[in-house]
């Protein structure tokens, strides 16, 4: 069997065990500095960042911004209204092919690269953050961390089935290195950070 053959040759050929290095030292950064850094990074990769004082002011902003779109779904329970319907789970992922705007809440935002962590429970269904034409992310200021090491420290042993870091709208630069937003996934990403 190939499995045993591969393992046998490996055991014979691999070098003597070398130890793992010590963990990366983590820098401590002020929370406001994190917000500025996160915003600068996000805007640098094509996202739009809105800083709001309270959660309640987000809904009208989204409603106004996407008033022309047909199908909007919100996976954030507290962010459902007459114009923003709640996400409903359908077993067939193809049924989300016509979603124009999808709204999510992330619990980790990484300042050094503006990546936002989402797990399957927060997505409603796995395909949604990819198949939607536009994406909205809601992040509490307290969710911001300086770097990837802190992010994984926060994720810890968490038992998700699927999780992803998302940094900005879908993009490609395959044609003569010209940056084009909206390759297969969302064409835009709006991020709301609330205190």
């Amino acid at each position, binding site marked *: *069997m*190939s499995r045993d*053959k*591969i*393992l046998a*040759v*490996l*055991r014979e*050929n*691999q*070098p003597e*065990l*070398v*130890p*793992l*290095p010590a963990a*990366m*030292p983590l820098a401590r950064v002020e929370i406001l500095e994190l917000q500025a850094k996160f915003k600068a990074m996000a805007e*640098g*990769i094509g996202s739009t960042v809105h800083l709001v004082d309270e959660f309640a002011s987000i809904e009208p902003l989204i409603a106004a911004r996407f008033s022309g779109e047909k199908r909007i779904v919100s996976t954030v329970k507290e962010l459902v209204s007459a114009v923003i319907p709640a996400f409903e789970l359908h*077993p067939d992922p*193809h049924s989300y*092919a016509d979603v124009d705007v999808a709204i999510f809440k992330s619990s980790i935002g*990484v300042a*050094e*690269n*503006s*990546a936002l962590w989402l797990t399957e429970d927060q997505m409603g269904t*796995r395909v949604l*953050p*990819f198949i939607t034409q536009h994406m909205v992310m809601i992040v509490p200021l307290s969710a911001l961390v300086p*770097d*990837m*090491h802190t*992010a*994984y*420290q926060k*994720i810890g042993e968490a038992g*998700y*089935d*699927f*999780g*992803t*870091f*998302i*940094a900005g*709208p*879908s*993009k*490609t630069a*395959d*044609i*003569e*290195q*010209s940056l*084009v937003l*909206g*390759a*297969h*996934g969302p064409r835009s990403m709006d991020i709301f950070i609330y205190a």
Partner: protein
Amino acid sequence: MSTTAKTHPELSEVFNKDEQRVNWHDETLWWIRQKRDKSAHSIPEWEVLREKASQIKNNALSNLAEYLVSFEEKALANGIIVHWAADAQEHNQIVHQILQKHDIRQLVKSKSMLTEECHLNEYLEKQGLEVIDSDLGERIVQLAKEPPSHIVLPCIHKKKEEIGDLFHQHLGVAAGTSDPQILTEAARVHLRETFLTRRAALTGVNFAIAETGEFVVCTNEGNADMGAHLADVHIACMGIEKIIPKRKHLGVFLRLLARSATGQPITTYSSHFKKPRAGQEMHLVLVDNGRTVQMGREDFRASLKCIRCGACMNTCPVYRRSGGHSYHYAISGPIGAILAPNLDREKYADLPFASTLCGSCSNVCPVKIDIHQQLYKWRQVIVQEGYATSGKKMSMKIMNYTLSSPGVYKTAGKAGRWVLKYIPFAVNNHFNPWYKQREMPEVPKESFGEWYKKNVK
């Protein structure tokens, strides 16, 4: 691919016929290299990160068998079906059998250099299956019936007008279109249709985690996710060297990967697949294809640390001026020139010579592989084993002799400088393959040794 019998110098000559294209290719890649530099310099602890990455990979390789066993155990517990393939042939058969079992004749694929290495597309197409590559760059070269010329930027060698022609022929775009925005939109529509109609999706794997049995796929376009989350069957294929010990180590690698590749702070999507979606079947194929043998070659073992960022190609003066296809192997550039002779010494004997040994590749490599030193070592192996051409054998012998004897090195340096100055045609002729397309360097007035003696007391 009609290029298999030709060597790197012959194939570069084809690429070098169009001087303007060579200059454009060179400048584009150098621009990406500069973006990498800017991005790396924005991280004060960059060198610490590289060192950590290198050490984590050293540990992973030194304990790979145990990590693989642990990964398999966790992945199985997570509900992933795990397969092992000794070589390319077995890998292709496993993928084919999974598709047959579900009676699926169409596959949508995201980027995987491993499947390029195994020639999966050709294999499946011969069995009458249809394969569509969903990474835009890969789709473009697929339409052109070419292999990718770069591991991160598969169609970096193509001009937008050529892509416009391809899209006109295959996707019905108006003739003469060359605007990247319009072309990307056309591909978006075409591939969305593909994603929505395929029942099976294949993805590569960037990192697999021994501790948790999950695997991570990084893309900018989101094509791996579109395919995997819509399909009933998800097949992920990986070389066995992609294992890292713990989830938290991703913190190190995700910081390095995109910055080294394109200068981005992170790829748009870094997706962690741990369990199949409800109702979905998830397969993972672990592939050896020469890796266990390379593990036993002490001099070349470190090449298994590669995370496929492409930085070594972007910086390589030879790659930039000869194009990826001249390497006639799935993985081009400096790292490809180390990996290829591991699989077939005779067929790829030319590749370790496609380097100036300037060391730029080793300087940018995020996992600190001693790339240029390994290229030099391959040259010696290839000469000793008798695969080198006679011209190369002679110059290798002289080089060996010169470098191993300081006295001769000094004299040879002097002589070299004298030759370049007074009889330049002795070097600038067609016996020196690197003279083609370029001027030889200006001769320094004194050697480094002479300068050092004068200036450093």
